[in-house]
């Protein structure tokens, strides 16, 4: 009787995972299809790499990808700095005036519909330009400022929950021994939250690289990011070189995840070995 519930939920899990992965797999498979119809397999001439070649020689896509990478690098770094400051503030500073406001402003962007965030940021930039003449028009700068803003919320959550999990005794001990707060942060707090900062940076990079809706509002005519170019292409229907692009992106992500899994396993092993050595030394 007990296992019947297990069987049901396990079956649901398998079907759910199939549901999650079939679309991705289909993009990968059809990226090697020779036919222009994309989903009609041309067995005589497939597999082929011609859509990858077409992708590489597509100057518009390559240019947009380069712009997206630069924006994502800067946005992720900015978001990590601001998000870490926020995370430390919320996890360590206790009650202060403005705390509720800060908490609200960090969780709200995560759930806010993107059309609203995009619209409000653009209207703000326009008003600001009228008022002080900066920023001059929309472009890479306004995109980056917007990305930093919505990405920092995610970094905050990651850093804050990591900090909340640690007790403060180490930091308090260092303070008692006379270390200045800045030194305590860089010597104790920061090393503790490095994993959170790294995953926050990666998350922010991915979100910035991927964002379409907010970017469309604040981009202006001259600067098209990769999602904007893809969106205008696929609005007209499936396109084989987009499948090739998707395959490349999926491969990069899979390799990245595999690398991080191996690194984490290595770290765990090293920690276990150190603990064993320490235990042995105590004997």
């Amino acid at each position, binding site marked *: 009787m007990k296992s019947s519930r297990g069987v049901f939920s396990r079956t649901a899990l398998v079907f759910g995972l199939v549901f999650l992965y079939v679309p991705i797999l289909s993009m990968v498979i059809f990226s090697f299809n020779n036919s222009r119809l994309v989903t009609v397999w041309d067995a005589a001439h497939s597999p082929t790499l011609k859509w990858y070649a077409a992708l590489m020689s597509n100057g518009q896509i390559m240019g947009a990808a380069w712009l997206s990478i630069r924006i994502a690098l800067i946005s992720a770094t900015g978001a990590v700095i601001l998000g870490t400051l926020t995370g430390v503030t919320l996890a360590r500073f206790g009650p202060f005036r403005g705390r509720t406001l800060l908490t609200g402003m960090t969780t709200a962007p995560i759930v806010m519909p993107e059309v609203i965030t995009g619209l409000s940021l653009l209207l703000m930039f326009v008003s600001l330009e009228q008022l002080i003449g900066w920023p001059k028009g929309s472009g890479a700068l306004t995109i980056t400022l917007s990305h930093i803003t919505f990405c920092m919320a995610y970094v905050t959550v990651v850093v804050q929950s990591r900090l909340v999990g640690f007790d403060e005794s180490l930091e308090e001990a260092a303070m008692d021994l006379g270390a200045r707060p800045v030194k305590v942060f860089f010597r104790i707090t920061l090393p503790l939250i490095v994993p959170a900062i790294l995953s926050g940076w990666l998350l922010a990079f991915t979100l910035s690289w*991927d964002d379409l809706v907010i970017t469309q509002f604040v981009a202006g005519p001259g600067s098209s990011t990769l999602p904007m170019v893809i969106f205008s292409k696929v609005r007209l229907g499936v396109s084989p070189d987009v499948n090739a692009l998707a395959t490349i992106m999926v491969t990069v992500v899979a390799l990245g995840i595999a690398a991080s899994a191996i690194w984490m396993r290595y770290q765990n092993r090293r920690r276990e070995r150190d603990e064993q050595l320490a235990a042995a030394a105590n004997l």
Partner: protein
Amino acid sequence: MDNRAGRRLVAGIPLLWLLLFFLVPFIIVFKISFSEVRLAMPPYAPLFQWLHGLPHPQLNLGNYAFLFTDRLYISSYLYSLKVASVSTFCCLLIGYPMAYAIAHAGPTWRNVLLMMIVLPFWTSFLLRVYAWIGLLKNNGVINNTLVYFGLIHEPLPLLQTDFAVYIGIVYSYLPFMILPLYANLEKHDNTLLEAAADLGAHPVTAFLRITLPQSVAGILAGSLLVFIPAVGEYVVPSLLGRSDQLMIGRVLSDEFFENRDWPVASAVAILILLALVIPIMLFQHYQRRELEAQK
């Protein structure tokens, strides 16, 4: 002294940033939603005019009145709420058993499974929605397969339907439902279930009376994480949805980009927010409780 100044700096920088790039923008949207549209740059009239050295407000409710008189806005508003509710419910139906199975898997499997749930989230949202065009269109994978096996003779119209929008939203937001549910279910104490079984309770009864009530917080968090962004969803209906029935996010964007009517676009934004105020506050409440429980 030095300590307090330092703290003020650490807390002050993000606070100022968010005030400027999050709160002030909303106040501006709110303000512009009461302005009149005009042909200029920016295309709206100032809210205050200075007469004899005194501010003279030009508040007008015309934009909101307009939204309620034109059928287009009301129907796309209600349609969005319907799509978001149905999708959230489907996410819950699919996500709950999945989260349950992961929470009851062995520790090694658990991490692998969680990784598999999160992995699609790291690949492009836009491209994952795009993949469904290839699956759902008339000569797409699903129709071709059904025709090949002789189950149907004519391709089924799947793309540009409500069904396609539900699939797209459920597919994109399923991890957001599973993760909070998993976090909740994983903490449950199995001894209660064992006790119920010892006392002769049917597993279904035990599930309904013990597991389900304990997981209400997780259900709520997951549902809010799906429902709130789904109401304003733009990409999924644009790529997979009907062209005769728009969702409210698309209406907002069309008002802004096609009609260049910034005041009406702002009024639409305020209207969407009104529907979401309670869900967003509920979510914040939950988030705070989760962080406090971790301590």
